[in-house]
């Protein structure tokens, strides 16, 4: 290459500046949220915004008294955990079946399952709302568990399918030769082999369930409310309780960020349902 060293250095310098600008742009909004969450309400409402103030942590405690935020956190936790485990169980069986048993139209069935993932939530919520209402399940965590677990199945099947496809056939075949049934091969050999894939899939389905808003908004009332719906409750006729809402928002998002850091290796695979490795 005949670009001089000096020119290359300038180029790299500019690229570094642009990179910094990009990351500032990404990080600035959540940082503003965090700043607001540690301001006293009077400071949060001050204009021009104050940059130097005495940080407080009391907003984080007060949200538990102002609204039953603890209950909402527990609701979110229960719904996301149960629906994740159910989706992993049913999803891994289906994914295994679809990759191991070759039958007519097995490929079509896989793609049919994938296409369900694309259904707009606002289209399925109307009949589901009516059905849950008839079954008297409105404002019960059961309704949300059913909805989240079902809508996570296509995702789980597709992501896990890509992990099962990576297991060398010979390992399973030798287990079969040793007299293992399909069932024991699945539980004893294949499932343990894709443990990292299961973990990554579980992290994603947990995040989807934790973040979901439309179903939670419509299927729950006061008792079974989850965190995202509770967050919108800080927007009131009388005004927005900025610093408290910010504190609750930080509590909602931090666990998800930590979780994704755990799934780092399979991030892109998860975000594209295995379409891109």
């Amino acid at each position, binding site marked *: 290459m005949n670009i001089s060293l000096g020119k290359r250095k300038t180029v790299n310098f500019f690229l570094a500046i642009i990179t910094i600008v990009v990351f500032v742009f990404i990080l600035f909004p959540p940082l*503003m949220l965090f700043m607001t969450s540690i301001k006293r309400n009077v400071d949060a409402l001050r204009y021009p915004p104050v940059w130097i103030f005495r940080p407080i942590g009391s907003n984080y405690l007060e949200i538990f008294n102002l609204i039953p935020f603890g209950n909402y956190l527990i609701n979110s936790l229960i719904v996301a955990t149960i629906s994740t485990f159910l989706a992993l169980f049913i999803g891994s069986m289906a994914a295994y079946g679809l990759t191991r048993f070759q039958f007519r139209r097995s490929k079509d069935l896989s793609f049919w*399952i994938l296409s369900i993932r*694309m259904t707009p939530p606002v289209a399925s919520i109307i*009949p589901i709302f009516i059905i849950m209402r008839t079954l008297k399940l409105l404002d019960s965590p059961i309704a949300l568990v059913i909805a989240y677990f*079902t809508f996570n199945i296509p995702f789980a099947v597709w992501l896990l399918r890509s992990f099962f496809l990576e297991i060398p056939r010979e390992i399973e075949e030798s287990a079969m030769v040793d007299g293992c049934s399909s069932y024991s091969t699945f539980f004893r050999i294949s499932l343990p082999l894709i443990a990292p894939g299961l973990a990554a899939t579980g992290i994603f389905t947990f995040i989807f369930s934790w973040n979901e*808003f439309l179903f939670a908004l419509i299927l729950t009332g006061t008792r079974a409310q989850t965190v995202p719906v509770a967050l919108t409750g800080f927007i009131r006729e009388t005004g927005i309780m900025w610093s408290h809402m910010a504190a609750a*928002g930080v509590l909602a998002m931090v666990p998800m960020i930590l979780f994704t850091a755990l799934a780092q290796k399979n991030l892109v695979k998860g975000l594209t349902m295995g379409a891109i490795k």
Partner: protein
Amino acid sequence: MTFKNLEKIAPFVFIGPAVIILFLIVIFPMVYSIGISLSEWNLMRGGNWKFVGLRNYYYTFFQDPDFYTSLKVTLIYVATAVGLELLLGLGVALLLNRPLKKIGIMRTILVIPTTMTPVVVGIIWRLLYNPELGVLNYFLELFGFQKLNWLGDPNLALPSVIMADIWEWTPFMALILLAGLQSLPKEPFEASIVDGASYLQLFRYITFPLLLPTLIVALLLRVMDAFKTFDLIFVLTKGGPGLSTELLSFYTYKYGFKFFHMGRASALSYILFLILFVITQFFLKYYRSGEE
């Protein structure tokens, strides 16, 4: 049952539960929803369904000017947001596709907006856009500009929501495209560099064509998601002012759960469903051709 019989039905035992659940909780309600869309049924007024044939669809297509406004807003939203996200995401991906020391941390930061609760994204941007105390107006004033009513001005509300969407999803694009760039084969690049190709030529004739499959997957995934945007609208504007940010998903929600007009809401939701169905078919066809 004997061991052999159990083995015979294994495919059903493995795949059956998932298929049955999807049928019960997705397919059956969607079919039920066709029935609702062909009826006059208001939850508030109570009473029974009244079969009205295609009247709800007729109303939507021929008597409801708001539907076309909402459709237009949705198309502008999807095209602008996803288009810009693709361009910016590609830029960021190319920027980071160099030997960088801190790439692990950078990836972690990139994923923050994507996995953050969308309602929180809405709250953050509402905070930034706040006309009285928002930091964006503070910066505008600092540099001698007029304050803006970001979400309250009918001409500005849609671009403002789009900007929040761009913040939320550009990193997602960048992550996927970066993964795509890093999995490209090395040889064509080395050969062209030896032949003296410029950076732009490299991009135009090698990088871009090789990256195209990844680009299409990312684009289709984003388009499908953008059509479903609901949370951002709910927190930022509730479709207003007027109908300036009334995306189809929000419009459908309003018919169903504000006006409780289930028949019309179901008809609307089927229109949205069909739009997405067509895009999904493209995606699946593309995905499948890559797999086989």
